[in-house]
């Protein structure tokens, strides 16, 4: 069973508003949306991200950016200077395929670096640490749908192993030091600013292909399923995570299982077009079904998804269509 529990030291709601939050990967897809929202809600935000701000890696003008790797030795100085109340750790190596080819660099980015960050955060009196974990990659092909918060699974890819590994370090720090930590196991997040790399970006890729009039490719028979979560809902879950004192791990997902073909139809509908996809052989190791049980998030975090897939796809398509020239230039190498 899931080891969710409340931590008494954080029952006072110290983190409600106006606190300082350090966000790693704060220029990324989820990160930049989260930073905007945190600032809109009156938080001060420090972004640690090794990238340079750009259209696809936007920096909110009210956020302070440290252009550095979150695992660099200098990170300690950032904590000493900024004294953040909370850390949201989003920066990661995000490609499952790359993790299979090069498990060593995946583990350096997704296990070793994060342990170092966790240590620095704890020693610098951070009060709350949230981690963006991954439901699909941890559960793999576990044959129970929707998949609840399992703890006895062996993830198949090094990416999933790494995500779960860091969760163990989070629990250990919570248990031994009373350091308040929570892993948010997200399903496939989509929405404006989505990149085109990684494997979870089907909606973004369809939006790009349709808006640019490119051929539409489906790998496999199109009947493989995903649980797509709108980025605005994902951001909301992090807000709830900051405000709560929940520890352990929790699924954050739409809870709706939808096929890739149906997803494509919804994007086409949003675009007002009819499409004819080309089918290619399935990618090796691709998960056939994925849908997460999100009831614990409602019960323990008071969170539930608000944006329907139809609505979210409409917003996302409009954004891609508006910026299609930039996506054309970006090509498909972007991560």
């Amino acid at each position: 069973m899931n080891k969710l529990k409340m931590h008494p030291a954080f029952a006072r709601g110290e983190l409600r508003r106006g606190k300082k939050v350090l966000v790693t990967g704060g220029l990324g897809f989820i990160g930049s949306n989260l930073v905007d929202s945190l600032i809109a809600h009156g938080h001060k935000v420090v972004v640690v991200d090794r990238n340079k701000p750009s259209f696809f890696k936007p920096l909110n003008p009210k956020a302070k950016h440290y252009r550095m790797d979150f695992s660099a030795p200098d990170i300690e100085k950032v904590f000493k200077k900024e004294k953040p109340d909370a850390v949201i750790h989003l920066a990661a190596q995000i490609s499952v395929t790359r993790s299979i080819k090069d498990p060593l660099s995946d583990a350096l980015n997704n296990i070793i670096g994060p342990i170092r960050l966790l240590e620095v955060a704890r020693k610098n009196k951070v009060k709350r640490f949230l981690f963006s974990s991954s439901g699909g990659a941890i559960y793999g092909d576990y044959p129970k749908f929707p998949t609840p918060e399992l703890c006895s699974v062996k993830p198949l890819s090094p990416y999933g192993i790494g995500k779960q590994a860091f969760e163990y370090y989070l629990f250990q720090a919570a248990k031994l030091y009373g350091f308040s930590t929570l892993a948010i196991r997200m399903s496939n997040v989509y929405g404006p600013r989505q990149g085109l790399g990684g494997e979870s970006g089907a909606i973004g890729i369809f939006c790009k292909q349709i808006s640019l009039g490119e051929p539409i490719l489906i790998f496999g028979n199109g009947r493989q399923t995903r649980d797509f979560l709108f980025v605005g809902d994902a951001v909301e879950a992090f807000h709830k995570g900051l405000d709560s004192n929940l520890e352990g791990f929790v699924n954050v997902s739409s809870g709706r299982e939808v096929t890739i073909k149906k997803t494509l139809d919804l994007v086409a509908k949003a675009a007002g077009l009819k499409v004819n996809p080309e089918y290619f052989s399935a990618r090796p190791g691709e998960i056939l079904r994925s849908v997460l049980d999100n009831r614990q998030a409602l019960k323990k975090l008071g969170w539930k998804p608000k944006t329907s897939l139809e609505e979210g796809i409409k917003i996302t398509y409009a954004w891609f269509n508006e910026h299609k020239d930039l996506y054309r230039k970006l090509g498909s190498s972007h991560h």
Partner: protein
Amino acid sequence: MTKKYTKVLVTGGAGFIGSHVVDLLIKRGYKVVVVDSMKKKKGWINSKAHYYRIDIRDPKLKSIFVKEKPEVVIHLAAHIEDRVSVLEPVMNAENNIIGLINVFENCRYSKVKRIVFASSGVVYGQQKKFPIDEKVTPWPTTPYAISKLVGEHYLNFYNKVVGISGVALRLANVYGPRQDSRGDSGVLAIFSEKMFKKQQPVVNNDGKTTRDYVYVGDVAQAFVQAVESDYIGEINISTGRENSTLEIFKTIKGLTKSDCKLVFNPKHKDVVRRVSLNPKLAAKVIGWKPKVLLKDGIKATVIWFKDRI
């Protein structure tokens, strides 16, 4: 069991458990290559094995795999001090996760056929039912325990996705000759040495913490049988019995004829109070059973320490 392979590479093969494994492999007629950093000690050397002094994280490990072309790898090299891992989790993970991946990646590219990984019973954490069997959900409580469980998960990846057959041996508390008495684990080694040196040993907590103590000679046998089987998964290597620190103290005190007092360190709390691991699966799938009784094993250990002092 029959011999299917001729050449075995043992990481950590100059250490306490590793050296016993190497000795037994040589006796069984294997060609043995050892990779060991020999950081803390000169190591236990078998003249018939070939030794490379190198850290498992070193990129140069590749040239050893390319040159030696082992068919089997036994991965024992690790940072093993549980309590130190709590203070230095990054260092522990760099050894036990990054080092392990480096070893397994070399297995991948040099076509190793089988990996035997030294995991640990610590992966279970505090459980409620004893003896613990392999089906329960592990709940590691220290960075060391986490690193061992994560190592099993990588082994599973190399097995399922890369196609290397692999088995993880979840070792109970291994004791016996050659155990390092300087660390914080290995209560038998520590008590034996202190009592022979007429020093005062300290019993942690209230002495009632129990562990499953398995003799190193039996453990070495388990490794050889794991090499020679095709079993894939995790197996307890243990006795299924529980003995308290106090019982160990009294037995060694009797054997060494020590007149030391019973001194407790109540400040030291053990998170995990009870351990015994069910060894039935090992009997079934690799035909292994512990043979050495605790009293005989302790006697052998004590004699070994006596000869060295």
